């Protein structure tokens, strides 16, 4: 099993969620995050002062998937999250050694 983590633009969350649902992913965890990559921050003027905004609001989405589905899930997320402009985010995969469903005690792929 793998943990797929995606950091994406907040307004793309809905599209990504729907695309994953359509693909057959049953659950996910979403957190509000902030950060930057190549995009860096930007400057803005507010109340007489110019600020550099280093950390841009993002959404962090985590999905546990079966090894066989990883490549397709990556494709689904990337496709749905893409605007083509800088700041679209990143997706990465880490191995998940064990998974347990708390309610039933099921383990491994059955717990996904």
């Amino acid at each position, binding site marked *: 099993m793998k943990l797929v983590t995606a950091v994406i633009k907040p307004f793309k969350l809905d599209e990504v969620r729907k695309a994953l649902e359509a693909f057959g992913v049953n659950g996910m965890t979403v957190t509000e995050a902030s950060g930057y990559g190549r995009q860096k921050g930007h400057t803005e003027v*507010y109340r007489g002062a110019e600020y550099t905004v280093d950390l841009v609001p993002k959404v962090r989405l985590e999905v546990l998937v079966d090894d066989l589905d990883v490549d397709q899930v990556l494709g689904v997320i990337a496709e749905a999250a893409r605007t083509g402009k800088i700041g679209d985010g990143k997706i990465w995969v880490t191995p998940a050694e064990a998974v347990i469903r708390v309610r039933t005690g099921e383990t491994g792929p059955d717990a996904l």
Partner: protein
Amino acid sequence: MPELSAGDTAWVLTSAALVLLMTPGLAFFYGGMVRAKAVLNMLMMSFLALAIVPVLWVLWGYTLAFDGTNGGLIGGLGKFGLDGVGLDSMHPGGLPIPEFSFVAFQAVFAIITVALISGAIAERASFRGWALFVPLWLTLVYLPVANWVWGGGWIFELGALDFAGGTVVHINAGAAGLALALVLGKRIGWPQQPMRPHNLPFVLLGAGLLWFGWFGFNAGSALGANGLASAAFVNTMVATAAAVLGWLLVDVVKQKHSTTLGAASGAIAGLVAITPACAYVSPIGAIIIGVVAGAVCALCVGLKYRFGYDDSLDVVAVHLVGGVVGTLMIGLLASADFTGEAEGLFYGGGVDLLWRQAVAAAVVIVFSFVVAYVLGKIIDATVGFRVSEEEEVDGIDLNSHLETGYELTSTSAGPTRSAAAAPARAESAQGA
């Protein structure tokens, strides 16, 4: 002894209640502008002014401001503790209202003036220091200045015009705010770190309450239910509206957006500027004062970054600058149709009124700034006027008041009472 006017008395008492509501309104206006970890402290600074000032007003505030004048500088002590003020006492200036109604009306002005200063020292002032500053500044600065302008003192004799408090309230508080901002120094992280308002709905709510209460402040200052009060009412309404437009215009040009904070601040800037002028100018003059105040104050909020003083909530840019704009523009726009006699430059009165206005403004700025600065330094050297670095970073609310403004999660680390203690206390209450 004039016959009592029930209509005038009713309006003055109503206005006093309206003005009292301005201080809680100010608390929300300021409270929304600070970061979430300092909202309670911001509200409490205003609320402490509401608690301290009325007590002192009854003891020695009213008498030192309004019991005649000694050399044009300060009133007497003949009415200490409101001694001699009775049910039948009438307004000392001969107006047909009871003296008690005048005592109440003037008290609420003193409250909000002191509370205004707190915006300059947001998020970092020790509550102990503030609790000392309020009575000292009230006694040493507010009471003399009120006597100069409204108690028959030297500014009154000079012929400078201040209908409802451009010098006494706004210039006075603004200059003191600047002094304290310098004494306390910058907040940790200012100005590199953006310190944006945590609750703009509070800010707009507070601005709305202030606008509402300000009708008591300005129209109530006629001390009668009459045409003067009504003209002041209309001018207060229209100058404020024009100032919102003026500020938003600057916002759009400089920031490409109309900000909520700009709309709220514009309203206050307009209210401040029309305060001294509301009974001396025509409604067209009021619109001009409003637009100018809104735009000029909006341009002045950037000054603190240029000069490096952390006037956290722009008490200087809004109250000091707005107060000066209003006070000076009386010298330009005063109309004999309203003042009865004095005329501004644009109405053919020459610079005669303008220089008197400028002198009044300048002296109040210097006096309030110097005394507040010295008071601040003394307080800082004795009980301390600034919280520790740790308290400031962790949040002044929890450290100064043992509370936090918002408990948004069930796992937050706020202070909690032992779960076992609660039922035991309930049982013993039932047994008793």
